[in-house]
């Protein structure tokens, strides 16, 4: 373990160097401007010292090299839709926004890959390649606003990742600016670049291994047929058992989502899609691919649903109905605002066969803390998303929300699950890491970090609980609250 380098507060010299490297208009220091960057979409606030908007890899390199020279921590930022405080700048860090690096560089439709800049929005990529019969498979619910650089850093998932895998399975290469300002290409268009899978190690590193400035993504052929099924049940247990049974039958639907009663009520009030508001749970199942497989799987899934007591089985008859059912799933966050003004979204994974048991425990936890909880989640891969909803003006409410959240995380891990399925660890779950990992495990992860960022200035103090962060250059700022 080496000594922490002395951190200097952001000084005028550093700022003038940044301005010279970029251009005055792309280096923001006015508090009204930089205040917008003090947090991501989580409740965790920090403080940005300066916000830079580079246009090219060379400019990112210049900014990072200046940070290295001043031993100044920096934080990469995409759209700030992260939910774990990953992009929250601590203690006046330099924020490096990729918002202006959002171009599609090239597409190879035969080999189904594209080179893009990291600030490109997830949905924009799919829109750009739709005419070629292709799409980018990872589809976070935030896909209209999150960047692919952010997806890479968080190894994000989405409803349609059940069959095709999360971001890591769709990234072939990342050009990365390391914390010393050097540029390296991890992975490549070729399938087995010599040596270790540095690409795979970088994906999911939450901005702590460097900044990706160019990404090669794998694109998927669009399906030829699709079927979207909504089934509802009088118990969560019946819904959960249907999920396990579908998988045990040898089917991997494109998506397999669950909504519980409170969620169905909220969404129905919001979009009037004809959802079964008196059901305890509903499953939204989508199968896609070639026509015969889609027809056969739809029949088999309906049979399984019936065997577990599904009350109604609604199969979307056309694209408009399909879009309406998905709107229900995707607008859940907007819908809850009608119940309470604030929410805290959790993200854990449990083995599929434990879904019902853990959900029942989630309900009990919420009840004990006198909170409302609704569940809308990726049931197919056991990825729970309990949404605690509240009004933060209620006295003492945040303590209850955090206490309930911690219990949900503990219950999930004790059931054989994991801390996070797609949102990452960031600051939010950093101190829960020992629930899943022992000291040797954490040390191994810290070793990866040291290898990629020996200076400890790339988004320090995230992910790893403090004793494992030998090389990080910062302490948590006093002005930060979690």
């Amino acid at each position, binding site marked *: 373990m080496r000594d922490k380098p002395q951190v200097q507060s952001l000084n005028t010299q550093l700022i003038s160097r940044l301005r010279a490297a970029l251009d005055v208009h792309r280096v923001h220091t006015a508090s009204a401007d930089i205040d917008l960057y003090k947090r991501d979409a989580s409740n965790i606030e920090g403080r940005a010292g300066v916000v830079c908007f580079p246009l090219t890899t060379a400019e990112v390199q210049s900014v990072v090299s200046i940070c290295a020279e001043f031993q100044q921590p920096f934080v990469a930022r995409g759209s700030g839709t992260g939910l774990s405080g990953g992009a929250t700048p601590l203690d006046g860090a330099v924020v490096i926004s990729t918002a202006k690096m959002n171009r599609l560089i090239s597409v*190879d439709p*035969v*080999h*189904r890959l594209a080179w893009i800049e990291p600030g490109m929005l997830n949905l924009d990529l799919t829109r750009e390649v739709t005419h070629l019969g292709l799409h980018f498979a990872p589809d976070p619910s935030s896909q209209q606003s999150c960047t692919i650089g952010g997806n890479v850093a968080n190894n994000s*998932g989405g409803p349609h990742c059940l069959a095709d*895998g999360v971001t890591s*399975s769709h990234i072939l290469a990342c050009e990365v600016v390391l914390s010393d300002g*050097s540029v*390296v*290409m991890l992975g*490549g*268009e*070729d*399938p*087995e*670049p*010599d*040596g*270790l*899978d*540095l690409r795979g190690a970088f*994906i*999911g*590193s939450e901005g702590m291994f460097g900044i990706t400035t160019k990404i090669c993504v794998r694109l998927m052929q669009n399906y*030829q047929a699709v079927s979207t099924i909504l089934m509802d049940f009088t118990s969560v247990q019946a819904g959960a058992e249907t999920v*396990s*049974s579908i*998988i*045990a039958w*040898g089917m991997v639907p494109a998506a397999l989502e669950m909504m519980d009663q409170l969620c169905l009520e909220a969404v129905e009030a919001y979009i009037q899609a004809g959802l079964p508001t008196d059901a305890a749970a509903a499953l939204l199942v989508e199968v896609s*691919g*070639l*026509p*015969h*497989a889609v027809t056969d799987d739809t029949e088999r899934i309906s049979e399984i649903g019936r065997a577990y007591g599904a009350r109604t089985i609604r199969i979307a008859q056309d694209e408009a109905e399909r879009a309406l059912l998905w709107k229900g799933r995707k607008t859940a966050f907007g819908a809850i605002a009608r119940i309470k003004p604030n929410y805290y979204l959790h993200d854990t*994974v449990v*083995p599929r066969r434990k879904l019902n048991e853990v959900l029942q425990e989630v309900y009990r936890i919420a009840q004990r803390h006198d909170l409302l909880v609704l569940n809308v989640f*990726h049931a197919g*891969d*056991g*990825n729970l998303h309990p949404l605690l909803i509240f009004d933060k003006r209620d006295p003492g409410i945040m303590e209850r929300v955090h206490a309930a959240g911690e219990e949900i995380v503990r219950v999930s891990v004790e059931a054989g*699950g*994991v*801390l*996070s*399925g797609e949102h*990452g*660890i960031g600051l939010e*779950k950093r101190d829960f*890491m020992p629930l899943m990992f*022992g000291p040797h*495990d954490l040390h*191994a*992860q810290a*070793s*990866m970090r*040291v*290898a*990629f960022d*020996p200076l400890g200035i790339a988004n320090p103090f995230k992910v790893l609980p403090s004793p494992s962060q030998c090389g990080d250059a910062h302490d948590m700022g006093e002005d930060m609250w979690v």
Partner: protein
Amino acid sequence: MGIDLSNFAESIGGVDHGPLWIAGQQTRTPAPSQLRLVAAPAGIVDLQPDEMTVVCGAGTPIIELRTELAKVGQYVNLPDGLTGPGTVGGALAEGRSDIYRLGRGPVRDTLLQVRYVNHDGQVVTAGGPTVKNVSGFDLSRLLIGSRGQLGYFGETILRTRPLPQSSRWFVMSEASQTVVEKILRVIYRPASVLWDGHKVWFCIEGNPKDCAAMIQRISVELPVITEISGPPDLSLYLHRQSVPPRLLGDVVQENARSDSHKIIVEAGVGIVHHQVPPESTPIEKGVTILHRRILEQFNPTGRLNPGIEILASAPSL
């Protein structure tokens, strides 16, 4: 339910226990005779078809895993081994895929969690037991292809998949690059497309009725395809090279010009199977530096599998 790795860890010992080598079935890399040998525990300990996961010792023969999984209609995406049946640990440590990578994806996506023994004899967990997991850095991905130099795998949790309902191979002679590209474009997610510059072999998998419909469609455009019982024999093609798939046409042409030896390429993927060792590709300096730093962290004394060069003999740029 997990495997007790204490004996395995003890056999490896701490840094002062000297250099050693972990052997699988040695189908790929024969163990150096002068080194102390260790072997990973073998056997399936938990198979959960409805979780699509299997827990097994890294020393488990892949054949055994395949047989047990087939009983529940599933398979695991690991290569059987080219010169004989290998082990789970060997396949993960090499990280090389088999010829179905185009449809089934790379080997690296198969590993969910591994408990390995590090250079100092400690048991370390990387990854998590569920199919979806972003808790911490993705150490599992780093370990795949590490050829025993970052740690010795003891227990693995692997992702399984449903066996395809049908899997059919076809061949066509006198196939140009345009034909190969047509196959890649017209067939919905083919499982494999192999090409030697003259013949193209391809595999389609899925619902039998869809496969039949797809063949009917492609037969209109390529009337001379013939169904065969399986892929071509690659047992003489022991060496491989990785190139961007868009360059495969050039590689095939260049090889035909030099007429040195036969090659078979995986179209859409970029693997070139050679009968003799191909030339190595230069490595970027930054990549070499990262490798060195990682090895310094994970194998500081060099006692794990000494003599292995993870970057092969590739020169630095």
